[in-house]
């Protein structure tokens, strides 16, 4: 399955990346190569194969409902690019994301 420049542009928004025209060009070519290569998988008949999302066959791992100490607010916000000692600050989120 080849991928078009337009599709790559659309995906760049979905992935929240900003690509210059030149980067878009290279990305389209490289993704095209890789997608062309992975096309190899389509020759396998996998209709009856159970997908394997985990490397382990483990289930039902729980923790008890116990409250543990949270981070100090200062510690939580210490890595924030912008904060006001109470909240993280980001450009306005009015409307949609």
């Amino acid at each position, binding site marked *: 399955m080849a991928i078009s420049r337009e599709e790559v542009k*659309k995906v760049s*928004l*979905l992935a*929240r990346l900003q690509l210059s025209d030149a980067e878009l060009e290279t990305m389209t070519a490289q993704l095209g190569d890789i997608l062309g290569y992975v096309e190899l998988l389509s020759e396998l008949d996998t209709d009856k194969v159970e997908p394997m*999302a*985990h490397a*382990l066959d*483990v*289930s*039902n*791992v*729980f*923790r*008890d*409902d*116990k*409250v*543990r*100490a*949270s*981070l100090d*607010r200062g510690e*939580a*916000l210490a*890595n924030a690019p*912008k904060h*006001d000692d*109470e*909240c*993280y*600050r*980001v*450009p*306005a*989120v*009015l*409307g*949609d*994301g």
Partner: protein
Amino acid sequence: MTEPYTIIIGLEVHVQLSTASKLFCGCSTAFGSPANTQTCPVCIGMPGSLPVMNREAMALALKTAVALNCEIPRRTKWDRKQYYYPDLPKGYQISQFDLPLSEKGYLTISDSRGRFEPKPIRIIRAHLEEDAGKSMHDEVAGKGDSRIDLNRTGTPLLEVVSEPDLRSPVEARAYLDELKLLLNYLDVSDCNMQEGSLRVDANINLHIDTPEGPVATPIVEVKNMNSFRAVERALDFEAQRQYEVWQETGTIMGAPGGHKTTRGWDETAQVTVPQRTKEESSDYRYFPDPDLVPVTTTEEQVEAIRAGLGELPAALRERLQKTYNVTPYDADVLVNQGRELVDYFTELADRCGDGKMAANWVEQDVLRWLNDRQIGIGEFSVSADALAGLLEKIKGGDLTTSRGRDVLTAMLDSGQSVDAAMRKLGIQSVDQNELETLCGELLAANPKVVEDVKEGRLKAVGALIGQAKSRNPNVNPGQVRELCLKLIERM
């Protein structure tokens, strides 16, 4: 209904489950703490952190799903729902996509006022997911900044999705009331809408009869409704609006311009307003969360949950009607107050042997007291046993109903027993001789009344009752009336 259309409504309800800690970490779920004081590397998605499932959240979710008559698949799993928003620190929400923990249930709704026939509302699915944080636009200091509080991030939510089986805003309201009641009986959520522990989104459209056959208006998802009342109003408004828009434009579902849209309820203006959504924002790229393992549930576990549910509202209403002979309306009022009040009622009714009388006293006197003070039945100081003693005295004619109310008030005020309260109020049975003397004296002092009665105006005797009560507050008005009439006859 006279409108030439049918309203089609489906509801998505998010219920915060009452766990002590969050869904995937040990942070507290308490409401109202200062911003960003209930977070840890896991719930703010710090690099390297990993989620571990809260056992209690799963237990509460399964309990609710079983009570909603859902099928519980043997295996469920966790998926990531991916979108970018600053209140979602990982860039994805841990939720359930194609293998929810429950599906295909129903909740029966009814209306004691008879506005619609009882009917089951099908539940498509109920699944667990983590809540997002809160973003606030800072108008004052902002210059366009939003402030993000992540305290709520990771709180367990059960999302209950109904089929579009509701046919009116009244039914939608009834569904929400019944769901909330059920959650209360199950003790799985505090259902506080103001604190966000219960949130409702509604999907609504109309099926309109036209000469060319039925048509459907485009589906609208309505958000931002902060009370059940608001849901009812928003849906009323939206139904009317969609009908008007259809009359103007004729746009139907699936036609150009007929795609699903989102509108928000504006509480102040009492209207729904359009909300902008981008096409790409709905591509959530769900995939199984590799950090969490699947959860399996056995048939035995489901049966154990079912056995432990206790009596749920629908069954309880039926039992109250059958066993205690109360009306459907009374059963509804009692059950809607919650399990504790029902327990109080049944104990009272069992002791005093009169379901109707018990219902009257609970609904009028007990509930008024509780409502005036905004307290629950747990804080009501007169036990069902003690109240039953009072009711027995009334039935035995020792007390009038109104005197009985005074006694109850005295019991509540002083914490005394029935007998002590009666003594305090000076209430004791009046001796028959004493009563005859009293009535004789009254008749002698009121010849006009005697005359009126003799002429057939029996009502006139009422004037004597007040006088008798003022001379001796313990007299039974019925007895006074009866004795006076008897004495006049003899005169």
